[in-house]
């Protein structure tokens, strides 16, 4: 493969491959955040559960949008999912005994 062709491939990948990679990364981060929140029983702690379930919804939707190759919105939902999951976790850590 000539250098010209290789450069063209890199440009092509960078032009079309940024969305899927980033969305995947964001979704993985959001998934990890949700898992951490669940470990702290955020789904059962009063005040944290709302954020936990909202985070789950955004994560599911992000995955769905990624499936439709709508990466931009998938990244947006993924980030919101992570933000909400982090909040749910911190509330659950702060109020471990206030289970619903």
């Amino acid at each position, binding site marked *: 493969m000539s250098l010209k062709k290789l450069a063209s491939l890199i440009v092509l990948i960078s032009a079309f491959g940024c969305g899927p990679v980033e969305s995947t990364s964001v979704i993985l981060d959001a998934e990890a955040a949700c898992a951490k929140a669940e470990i702290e029983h955020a789904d059962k702690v*009063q*005040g944290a*559960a*709302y*954020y*936990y*379930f*909202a985070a*789950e*919804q*955004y994560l599911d*939707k992000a995955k769905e949008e990624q499936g439709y190759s*709508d990466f931009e*919105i998938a990244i947006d939902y993924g980030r919101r999912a992570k933000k909400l999951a982090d909040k749910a976790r911190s509330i659950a850590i702060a109020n471990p005994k206030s289970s*619903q």
Partner: protein
Amino acid sequence: MRMRAIALSNLAALQLLLLIFVPISGCATAERVRGEVEEVRNKVVAAKKSGAIKCAPKELALAETNSEFALHELDQGNFTRASEHSRLAVAQVDLALKNSKGCGPKKVIIKKPKKITVKKTDRDGDGVPDLDDRCPDKPGPAESKGCPDTDGDGLLDPDDKCPDKAGPRDNDGCPVGDSDGDGLLDNEDKCPNDPEDLDGFEDEDGCPDKDNDKDGVPDVDDKCIMDPGPPENQGCPVLDKDGDGVPDKDDKCPELAGPAEKQGCPDRDGDGIIDPEDKCPDQPGVIEEHGCPKKYSLIVVTKKKIQLKQKIHFAVGKSRIMRDSFELLNQVADALKSSPSLKVRIEGHTDSDGPAAYNLRLSERRANAVRDYLVEKGIDPERLKAVGFGESQPIASNRTRKGKAMNRRVEFNIINQ
């Protein structure tokens, strides 16, 4: 051909219909979804207010997120997915509202306090308002806080146990009587129901004193109600002024101590004649001489001894009494007979001539010889004690004849009366 043409025209019509209907139905769906989303958002606000974040967190989260997803799908032209999200949001928001009923903070309503107005009343019409009136139902002057003093004893009726009868304050306003009629008012009478006997003894306490001298003999039977005494003496004290144990009434000498056998009288000289009847109380004497000693020519009886005016003569170196001393000893015997209570110690003494042991034995023999003579004359031997001292108690020098003569002697010392 014709059929084919008809089919083609029908297909074209169908396509036309689709072209017209689909956009129309898409518009209707979008409109419905937007309406639902708007409704969901309003309900979400209401649910949050009623505490759905705490009580229905999952339903609220699903409603809120799905309403957002519905709008997003609408924007993307995905009516079907928008519709699905919208339906889910509607269902969840209703659940959130339902589950959060009564979960939100309760309203606390603070009512304005009612104004309390106090009307000044005066039930007894004494000019003192009931609030300040100690006796709101009985008229009384203001200076007595509205209370009357019906009996005028200075105690207001509420403080007066007998408001209709005047009485002193220390009797709670009740009159003081004299229940036992002893002349002392009950409030001053320690025994208000037992009359004072007014016998001059502690009459001021109002209690009768049934045994003033507290000797156990009731005053009615006590001849000496103020002086304690035994019942056998009718409550009178048994006097013994001289303290000799003989009551004054039996004491011949109530002022002078003396033994009971001598009727409480003393007998200083022990001659058996009590001092009041003894003219010579300090000298043993005889009755015929009124207690004075019988006068003897050869002896003198004193309180301590029978003094001899002569010496008793013995045979030289022997204990035989010489005849010339018989009269002397007879007078001693007579004196002893006159004072039967006298007891004497007959002491024999010698000079220092000869061995001391010999002298001692000689003095003993001579004292015994005198004793035997007196016994022979009728004196009780128990009253006589003979002792020989030998040369041990000279009363003069043994160097001279005169001194030796004085040392050779017999003494009669009175030892007990």
